[in-house]
């Protein structure tokens, strides 16, 4: 049944009686500090208890899919940065992967290894920010400062090679924008050495905190069945106990050649989502450690920069595992240098919708913890 917003906002018929409570509606957002942007949630409340959550979208809908139809495949890469800006490199990779698959561009080992290293470093960077913001949302400002302290170290590494701090625009169809900086290997190694004890500190500082555990444990349980039916992916799905990771299931890059584990939760509550992400940082460091010492020699770009890449007519789909889940790019090509239609299957859209299944019955304060543990990025939802 399709229900509109007006249907749901109608007051319940069975009100009245001496001890009855009244249900009411309240807007959370679009200007709210813990919705991580301009997300609007219409909450149906009974006192402090949440009865229903209705996400309302569109406050940052920029029409990226439509703009994509007017740009060459290379030009579309820079728009993919602005989708989920915290995993910009992985978004670039998703576009490049799809176009390379369609245009049949073979890549050398050097490009694949560098891409994998960059993607894993970005995953660490994204989770560092999430960790800091989770602390801030739950009332502790210190994790925010600690998370950003370590994030800046990694940002410097990226900036040296790519010249940008946030929207890198680095991975492009046919290779990479620039070769890695001569200092890159050295600095990544020193970062790994620096960050390993810091990750233990993270767990001591925030993970071992009783207040945090009380607010996260057994809050917002997402059953595996619901998670799959909602289309949730990434750490949200894995915390519910489904070990679905594209890096294992359909390996791209050089993920098939490296050893790493996929952390899986048991209950699917906020604490599992917290733990899965912390463990993912450790696994990402493990992947980078295996690759950083032997980056093969070769060219970093196999297609001439001035050439418009032409894709043969057909339907193409490519997907990667970003820091938040599966980003799929669906391209309808008509044989020219421009896509006929681009559709983006963004991870946050589905992850957000799982909140409609989790939240009923919980308190408003739990909603903040849930939103934080889902780790949503709103421009990725709205495109």
């Amino acid at each position, binding site marked *: 049944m399709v229900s509109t917003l007006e249907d749901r906002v109608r007051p319940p018929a069975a009100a009245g009686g001496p001890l009855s409570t009244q249900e009411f509606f309240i807007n959370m957002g679009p*200007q709210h500090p813990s919705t991580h*942007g301009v997300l609007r949630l219409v909450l149906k409340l009974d006192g402090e208890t949440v009865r229903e959550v209705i996400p309302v979208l569109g406050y940052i809908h*920029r*029409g990226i899919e439509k703009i994509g139809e007017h740009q060459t495949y290379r030009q579309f890469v820079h728009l993919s940065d*602005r989708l989920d800006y915290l995993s910009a490199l992985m978004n670039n990779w998703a576009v490049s992967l799809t176009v390379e698959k369609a245009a049949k561009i073979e890549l050398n080992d050097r490009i694949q290894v560098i891409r994998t290293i960059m993607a894993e470093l970005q995953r660490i960077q994204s989770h560092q920010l999430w960790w800091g913001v989770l602390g801030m949302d739950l009332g502790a400002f210190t994790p925010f400062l600690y998370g950003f302290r370590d994030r800046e170290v990694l940002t410097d590494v990226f900036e040296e090679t790519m010249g940008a701090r946030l*929207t890198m625009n680095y991975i492009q169809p046919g290779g990479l924008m620039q070769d890695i900086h001569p200092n890159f290997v050295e600095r990544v190694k020193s970062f790994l050495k620096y960050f390993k004890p810091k990750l233990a500190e993270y767990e001591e500082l925030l993970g071992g905190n009783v207040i945090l555990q009380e607010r996260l444990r057994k809050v917002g349980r997402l059953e595996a069945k619901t998670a799959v039916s909602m289309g949730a992916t990434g750490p949200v799905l894995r915390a519910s106990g489904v070990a679905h990771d594209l890096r294992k299931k359909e390996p791209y890059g050089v993920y098939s050649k490296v050893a790493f584990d996929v952390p899986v939760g048991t209950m699917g509550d906020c604490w599992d989502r917290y733990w899965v992400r912390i463990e993912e940082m450790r696994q990402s460091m493990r992947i980078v450690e295996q690759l950083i010492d032997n980056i093969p020699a070769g060219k970093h770009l196999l297609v001439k920069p001035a050439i418009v890449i032409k894709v043969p007519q057909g339907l193409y789909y490519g997907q990667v595992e970003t820091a938040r889940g599966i980003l799929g790019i669906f391209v309808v090509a008509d044989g020219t240098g421009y896509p006929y239609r681009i559709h983006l299957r963004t991870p946050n859209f589905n992850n957000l919708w799982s909140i409609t299944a989790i939240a009923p019955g919980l308190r408003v304060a739990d909603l903040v913890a849930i939103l934080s543990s889902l780790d949503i990025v709103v421009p990725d939802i709205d495109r």
Partner: protein
Amino acid sequence: MGLITEKLPLYLDPVPGSSWFLGKLDEVINWSRANSLWPLTFGTSCCAIEVMMAAGASRHDVARFGAEVARPSPRQADLLVVAGTIVKRMAPRLRTLYEQMAEPRYVIATGSCVISGGPFIYHSYSTLRGLDGVVPVDVYVPGCPPRPEAYFYGILTLQKLIKEGETVRRPGERRKPVLAALPAGMTVDQIQEEMRSLLVTEKNSGDRRNG
């Protein structure tokens, strides 16, 4: 505060030597306004990470410029930092937030999106081409996204504006001192004309494959 800024000049004007006193009063009031800016936490997209979060965090530390007390409520804030794209659906909400803020209020527009539309200037049906149609902007900080250092330069510029801008004699009336000069032989009209001609050619280009 309202008593000082609104009533005092009326009483003092006939008194000899009052202009010197009011001038000093201006300096004190503007100095304190400039050094205690309370920004509203308003981030819509990518710029929020750099301008609101990284700038406020450990390395860059916006507290050095007295602008670290980010308030989620517009009623407690006096600086609106618009960080990120504003689309047509968000524009009325932004206007509401701006109107809820108490005077004197200041606006910094960070990032290409709120200056001109940025990466979404062509072919987007929903992005606003520039924020200045919705709220008056005091300082623009370009970049996509701007570095935290660029944001600091914007804050310092705004502080300069506040210190020289307003007097207690004419509250609400803001003078804008010249902070940056255009290149020689170039006028604002020429720049606007150039931008307009670009937009016109885009509109007339017709088929996307020709453009």
